């Protein structure tokens, strides 16, 4: 047995898309303990509620994260709507669900590509990102932006989408389905993928509950914490929603949950397009949140449950805005998953929680 050594991992590391530092205590090649450290990209965005009014802050909220940009603007808008008791038109609620699920598709495709790159499957990585490009083109045609959409307002949506645009969305998703099935086959059946993922970084259901893990990370350990099950907004009108659960708890189960969630999201979008009612998409909101009024909201982001809290002070500026993002919760689970793994598997385990450090630090 060798002496314990501490290996610094990150914040600048080829496999990490964002700056996370880990002190890996290793015994030979086995990780004994992993001590995470964050704080490299803190921007103090929540503090900006004091200098930007509640309408202006929506554009800052969507800059919390580059991947779940739409989700953050949606979560923030829903919180303010609850704070001010605003009823959003039904059509706007449906459009929000459609764009949010499209964001999930693009986020998961991005993650699948990054994961493929991490285990050295370059062509799989490129095909995943090629399909993601189609989703970004849909965003560009519908909202005018590829990543930062600026599509949500407090009280509804910026633009209505006519039936030809909705049909284009449906056709695009139908068009990628066949190719995506081949990608899924590569992810779920290829022996080289399985060699790198099966049995790596296993988290039991009990640990997942103890560490309050969220999102696909927890669902891979058979913990159902999908906020969409609560049926808020447009999700209430879904005929049937069953979260994707896996029992393996390892890296392979996490990849499988995300791969299947893409297909689930496509089904949700198709159902929403079928059911979308006519009507306005924006209701003007006047006034300011009352002094002392509080509201909280949860939203299922691609990475898991995100919690929003807002406190009004009688002016257009919020007294306090707080967001608890999925990665900040999942870091504890990640440190547990890293215990006992091989040093060569660290990058894979870190990636399978889909870390978003910009979200976490805001």
């Amino acid at each position, binding site marked *: 047995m060798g002496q314990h050594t501490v290996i610094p991992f990150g914040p600048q590391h080829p496999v990490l898309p964002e700056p996370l530092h880990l002190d890996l205590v290793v015994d030979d090649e086995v990780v004994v303990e992993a001590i995470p450290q964050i704080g490299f990209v803190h921007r103090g965005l929540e503090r900006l509620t004091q200098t930007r009014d509640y309408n202006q802050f929506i*554009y800052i909220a969507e800059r919390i994260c580059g991947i779940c940009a739409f989700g953050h603007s949606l979560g923030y808008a829903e919180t303010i709507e609850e704070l001010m008791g605003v009823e959003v038109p039904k059509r706007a609620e449906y459009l929000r669900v459609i764009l949010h699920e499209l964001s999930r598709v693009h986020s998961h495709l991005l993650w699948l590509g990054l994961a493929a790159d991490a285990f050295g499957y370059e062509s799989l990585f490129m095909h995943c990102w090629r399909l993601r*490009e189609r989703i970004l083109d849909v965003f*560009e045609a519908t909202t*005018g932006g590829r990543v930062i959409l*600026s599509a949500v307002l407090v009280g509804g949506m910026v633009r209505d989408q006519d039936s030809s645009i909705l049909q284009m969305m449906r056709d695009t998703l139908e068009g990628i389905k066949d190719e995506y099935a*081949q990608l899924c086959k590569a992810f779920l059946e290829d022996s080289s993928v399985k060699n790198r993922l099966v049995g790596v970084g296993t988290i039991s259901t009990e640990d997942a509950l103890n560490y309050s893990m969220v999102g696909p990370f927890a669902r891979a350990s058979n913990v159902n914490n999908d906020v969409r099950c609560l049926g808020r907004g447009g999700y209430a009108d879904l005929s049937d929603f069953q979260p994707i659960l896996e029992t393996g708890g390892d890296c392979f189960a996490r990849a499988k949950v995300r791969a299947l969630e893409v297909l689930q999201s496509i089904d949700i979008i198709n159902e929403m397009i079928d059911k979308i009612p006519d009507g306005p998409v924006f209701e003007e909101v006047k006034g300011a949140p009352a002094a002392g009024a509080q509201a909280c909201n949860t939203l299922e982001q691609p990475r898991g449950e995100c919690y929003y809290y807002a406190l009004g002070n009688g002016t257009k500026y919020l007294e306090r805005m707080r967001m608890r993002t999925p990665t900040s919760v999942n870091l504890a689970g990640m440190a547990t998953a890293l215990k006992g793994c091989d040093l060569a598997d660290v990058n894979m385990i870190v990636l399978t929680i889909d870390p978003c450090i910009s979200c976490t630090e805001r």
Partner: protein
Amino acid sequence: MGSFKLGTMTIKSIFSKPETVLYPVMEKTAPDGLKGHIANDMKVCILCGICERTCPAGALRVDKAENLWAIDSFACVQCGACTRACPKDCLTMEPTYKKPAASMGEDVFYKPEETEEERAAKEAEKAAKIEAAKKAKEAKDAAKAEETSD
């Protein structure tokens, strides 16, 4: 063979059309709904400054005394808040890709000087409006007077 599941797709992509565009020789066609960049019709703009106050990024500067409207494209986040707030609808989002800038700084636009004809037309329009308002007021007063006499 378990490790060649992506074979069909990969071989197919050798013969299919490239997914990327050879920029700058070729350019992508912008979709109609593209946010693009902010354009201001300076002839219609009244330099009220509402856009400046609405902009969350502080990218706009309006100076009525100087007769100018300026935008810092590097600060603009293309949210479109100014176009929705504009009372004259002179601000629009042009759905085109902007060429890369050669230098940083704001683009300044000046409100064009009015020609004699434009000024005369504006004054005539103003006078017509005043006249119409006067007539409406007279009609209203007359109706009121009739009501009280009854």
